[in-house]
């Protein structure tokens, strides 16, 4: 059960949990492709061992090793637990690939075996996962450097060819660093999207709450739940008759109504033929504000045909900002001032925020990136002055 926290930020338990779920979902998709490449790589290793007349014991060991690994991945898929274990699978696969390629290099000691190291790097990189990226670059660099140092013959280097060796050390180190930087940029971008997706789900939920608050303020009434269930009884009775089945709905509606008046345990005693899980599920029919059913009804009611042209998807950048880098600083200052006064005043029939709340939102959430850093510094260092300016202006006009 997720604990409530009033802020939507990266550390919010619900957002964190959701980000982890989204990351695993997407990782599972990427892993499908990378695993397929892994199979091709394993086949290539096997072909090389065959062509270079490796011992049959080694070939058998390789065969069993890859079959075991494939079985492990398969079991995790079949039992539906794969997504929870997808990261573990990916780490195992990455390590197994490097173990495999190291073995081939030691056995064959040829340029083509060394080239296989690059291919292994490419396959592991396809997982695009944070820790796997670290494993990938460390393993690639370590195996590469050790091979050149201890077994220069693999690259047909003479023991005295210091210049060539230095060049290869530099090449490997510089380009591992370069690719690590490239992977970090890509992974940061992905993590940013996962984070934004997790946050937007929470924002979606809270925006529904905001609309519900407006409806309550404007209409001064809640949906008439008694009427809802009265007509539902009429409908389900007719439905059962039409489908020529026993009316299984009647008792369920009784339980929903009973749940409004007594706790689940009491209802369970009264209806012993139902399990606690069934009673809990019927509890979701509650009409309370913030409830699952209310949000679902709202979402369905606001669904509309959506056309999202490709250019809209990409131009619709994840972050809206008060600080477009092409805007003049006047525009950026005015945007921030309007934003601040709206929050401070509690505009549009919302509750006013205190300066502590505003500063907290601006400093500890994505807003820190959405406001010009100098404007943000000015505000954080002069909160009291901002407060005084606001109060004076409002008092003079008599609108506070």
């Amino acid at each position, binding site marked *: 059960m997720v604990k409530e926290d009033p802020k939507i930020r990266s550390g919010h338990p619900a957002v964190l949990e*959701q980000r982890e779920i989204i990351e695993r979902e997407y990782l599972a998709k990427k892993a499908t492709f990378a695993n397929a490449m892994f199979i091709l790589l394993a086949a290539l290793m096997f072909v090389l061992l065959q062509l270079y007349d490796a011992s049959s014991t080694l070939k058998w060991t390789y065969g069993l090793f890859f079959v075991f690994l494939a079985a492990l991945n398969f079991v995790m898929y079949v039992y539906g637990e794969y997504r929870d274990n997808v990261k573990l699978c990916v780490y195992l696969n990455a390590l197994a690939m490097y173990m495999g390629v190291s073995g081939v290099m030691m056995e064959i000691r040829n340029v083509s075996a060394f080239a296989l190291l690059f291919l292994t790097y490419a396959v592991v990189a*396809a997982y695009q996962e944070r820790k796997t990226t670290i494993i990938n670059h460390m393993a690639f660099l370590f195996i590469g450097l050790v091979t050149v140092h201890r077994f220069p013959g693999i690259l047909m280097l003479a023991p005295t060819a210091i210049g060539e060796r230095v060049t290869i050390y530099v090449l490997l180190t510089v380009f591992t660093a370069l690719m690590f930087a490239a992977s970090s940029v890509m992974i940061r971008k992905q993590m940013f999207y996962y984070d934004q997706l997790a946050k937007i789900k929470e924002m979606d939920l809270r925006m529904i709450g905001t609309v519900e608050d407006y409806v309550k303020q404007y209409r001064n009434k809640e949906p008439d739940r008694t009427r809802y269930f009265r007509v539902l009884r009429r409908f389900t009775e007719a439905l059962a008759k039409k489908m020529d089945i026993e009316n299984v709905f009647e008792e369920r509606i009784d339980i929903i109504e009973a749940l409004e008046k007594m706790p689940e345990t009491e209802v369970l005693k009264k209806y012993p033929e139902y399990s606690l899980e069934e009673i809990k599920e019927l509890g979701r029919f509650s009409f309370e504000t913030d409830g699952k059913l209310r949000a679902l009804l709202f979402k369905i009611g606001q*669904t509309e045909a959506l056309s999202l042209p490709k250019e809209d998807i990409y131009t619709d950048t994840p972050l809206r900002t008060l600080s477009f880098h092409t805007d003049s600083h006047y525009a950026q200052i005015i945007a921030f001032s309007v934003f601040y006064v709206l929050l401070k005043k509690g505009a549009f029939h919302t509750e006013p925020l205190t300066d502590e709340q505003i500063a907290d939102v601006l400093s500890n959430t994505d807003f820190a990136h959405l406001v010009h850093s100098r404007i943000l510094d000015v505000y954080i260092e002069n909160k009291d002055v901002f407060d005084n300016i606001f109060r004076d202006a409002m008092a003079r006009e008599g609108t506070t």
Partner: protein
Amino acid sequence: MRTLWLKLKNSAYLPVNELLGMKVLLVLVFMFLFGALTIPVSILEAFSVTVTLVVALGFFVMFATSFSMVLLKRVRLAMHLSIYTFIGLTVYYVSGATLAYGYFFFFITLIVIIFFQDVYAYTVYGGSLIVYGILYINAQGEALMGDFEMSVMMSNVIHQIILVGFFLFFLVYFILSDTHYEQLATDFATRRKAIDKYRMLAMKFSAELDERDGVAAPVEDVGFQKAVSETALFINELFEDEGENIIEVVEFYFALHQYTLDDVLADSRIAAITKRYASELDKFRIDKNTDLMALFYEARNHVKERHGGEDRYVFRLEDVFTAKANQLMVLGLVYVYLRTEWMQLDKWGRVERSMTHEEICELFKLNELRTYLSYEHAVFFLENEDLFNQCLR
């Protein structure tokens, strides 16, 4: 270097062009290190002093030109120049008669091209490099063979397969990466569109409340205008720029709410600088569903609790209610909600209308509804729509 490191750290927030500029700069730093360390060393191996000097000079010219292009914000051109430099270095090292490791230079240069994550650059330059690599292996295959007893042809094929495999693998990887980003971006854009619609409803209700309670909207509230104006003046003073004009721009910002941006831009009497401010400030209007309004509600909702319970973000009917009977009852409640609650816009743009039976039938045919209801649920409704209409009004 510090700026480069900070940019790398905050790369997720950088616009595409700035991100590319950062990558080019990073490649140039590595290229400089690499060239400075390896070109002098290569003189010890297979090349004459003249050749090495020409290469060193060429390298320096290309490096300086690429760097200048970054400074001049021509980052795409700088990217191409840095790729040419690496391709040049590949040809140089590969030409060394005894340099078997020249083979690896193909991988290294491909990695540099991959770093830019530009599928077209990768296809054109990477593809050309691969063709050159295949020819190189055919010519130098024997030098790559080592001591094993195998035909040169077989050895060449293995080296070529690995090189081409590496290239093709990353090509597919690029395509899949693009698809992956597209999925993420689509999911994000879809959810944002939904929130935009919810915010539009919120703003409609707020306007109705203003009208009902006789409250002035913020844009017409003199106290609000004064507070904005004085806050902006204060910030601007601390920016230590010429400050007086900002008051005029604030006044213009509030006046802008009476016009559309198109009207302002089309008016030939308005000065160019004013039109520029109008374009910049239009997205911060507070009488429309703008970026600023989105950020206002977002900030407000940061400090607003909401109890979501377990499976907080799960809204698919069959995931929320597992029993078939419960799912059918929810369908009934959905119908009652849509027919009776006034949550739709009427012809005057007010949220004062519920859906008609025909509209609900159309809604159930929408693909977008599959996010919440399965195809079977929609079919069940459409097959029994008369019953819903008769009993649930």
